[in-house]
């Protein structure tokens, strides 16, 4: 994607029918550190790779609880993401106040998408530079949505966004068909494995990833959206490493080198995919 005469503002179409500012916003998502989401019928898990500005600072917060029944993980301009999380929280609270019931996740994703769309059609605004994985639980089960800066959103069984997310997507593509029946622990393990794929050989520890889960147990009680404690994550990582050995790490290194080219090579506008 190169500079051209149609990319100055978001309200200018290119002759090929593209809005370049929106596509540039989606590039910002690809620069953020990776996030992964996956779901079964009853549970949804979000995981994020933590990135710290320097060794001296704390890591960037990427997973936000939006309501008891929903949360988001974001990649891209985290300041935009923080503002959108506040909007989502406000929507959930307002709905709960009037209707005394949790806002269905599909409607939450829709409201977010409509807000993002506004910024693609005003000359004095810019699109939000953040992609959000929205995970939640409602009466129809667990859901995972991806909302992108273009205002599009889709429901997913599993998805990954951010830098080196192609490696995670490849991993998820191989395994997603069984996810509906996965237990929460299996989902968490797969989320950690997917994040591990994006770390490109770096060791996965509880200090460079965040995992959160929301779901409904078999007896009907709801487990509210919550980040999993670091010690527990480390235990799970340790048990995963004990089970698998070097072969898994070698396969990940081979895949991660081929992923980045795919993102830039397409001619179709990314938002249409």
């Amino acid at each position, binding site marked *: 994607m190169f500079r051209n005469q149609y990319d100055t503002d978001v309200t200018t179409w290119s002759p090929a029918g593209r809005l370049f500012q929106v596509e540039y916003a989606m590039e910002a998502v690809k620069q953020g550190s990776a996030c992964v989401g996956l779901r079964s019928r009853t549970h949804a898990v979000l995981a994020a790779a933590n990135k710290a500005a320097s060794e001296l600072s704390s890591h960037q917060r990427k997973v936000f609880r939006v309501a008891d029944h929903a949360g988001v993980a974001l990649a891209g301009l985290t300041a935009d993401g923080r503002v959108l999380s506040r909007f989502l929280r406000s929507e959930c609270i307002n709905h709960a*106040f009037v*209707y005394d*019931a949790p806002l*269905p996740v*599909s*409607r939450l994703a829709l409201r977010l998408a409509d807000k993002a769309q506004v910024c693609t059609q005003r000359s004095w605004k810019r699109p939000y530079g953040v992609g959000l994985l929205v995970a939640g639980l409602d009466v*129809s089960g667990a859901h995972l949505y991806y909302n992108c800066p273009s205002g599009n959103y889709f429901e997913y069984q599993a998805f990954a966004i951010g830098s080196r997310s192609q490696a995670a997507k490849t991993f998820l593509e191989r395994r997603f068909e069984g996810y509906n029946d996965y237990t929460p622990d299996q989902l968490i393990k797969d989320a950690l494995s997917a994040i591990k794929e994006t770390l490109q050989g770096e060791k996965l520890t509880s200090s460079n990833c965040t995992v959160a889960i929301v779901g409904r147990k078999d007896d*009907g009680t709801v487990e509210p959206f919550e980040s999993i404690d670091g010690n527990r994550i480390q235990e799970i990582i340790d048990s995963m490493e004990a089970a698998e050995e070097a072969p898994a790490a070698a396969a990940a290194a081979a895949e991660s080198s081929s992923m980045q080219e795919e993102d830039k090579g397409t001619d179709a506008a990314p938002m249409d995919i």
Partner: protein
Amino acid sequence: MAWQQPMDGSHASGSKVAAADGPGTQRTQYPYVTGTSVIALKYKDGVIMACDTGASYGSTLRYKSVERIKAVGKHSLIGASGEFSDFQEILRYLDELTLSDHMWDDGNSLGPKEVHSYLTRVMYNRRNKFDPLWNSLVLGGVKKGPKGEEKYLGMVNMIGTHFEENHIATGFGNHLAIPILRAEWCEDMTFEEAVKLVEKCLLVLLYRDRSSINKFQIAKITTEGATIYPPYSLKTHWGFAAFENPSKGAVGSW
């Protein structure tokens, strides 16, 4: 009537807040066309609701074919006593609500709990503006939740008081029907048992509430949907000895 207030152009009851309306305007102070009691109870398959089809204009039994119970969305029934025009207004709000809910076309639908909560917000907000919707609303329904089918029955009145119960009655029903319901209601009644209990209450109300008429409608809501049955009358008995010769034993010129 107890609700009469002086029409002197100023609002009664501490209305400096409400004065923003301007001169010559007034808020609702009393109802005109009113419906009397509504009773409802949970039974095995859902919720049953009943009331008469009358609407009074003060002490006159003016309208005799009025439907005071309506279906709301796919899962609920609403019954109202009090000012009938305010009930019609509430039905319009609910229409807008259920229509936009339906237009999302996303598999979600408003259940009775959500509708009840919404109505509570509306009623309480109007009360706070000194412009109440002069009704007592009964909201019943069934919706499939994660723990199976959940029956719901609640009520909200013109000042925003709201609660859920296994059996509800408004107006005179509070005094005449609730004692019967408390004594004789039980979990998982069959439809026939529930109708019998409801008719027992309706009969007492017919005898003792002067604004009731002998034409009733029963409605039920189950997972299959709402059914409002056609109006019918109850058999009454007036053959008491004391009614046969009313002036017997009367002393004096009156």
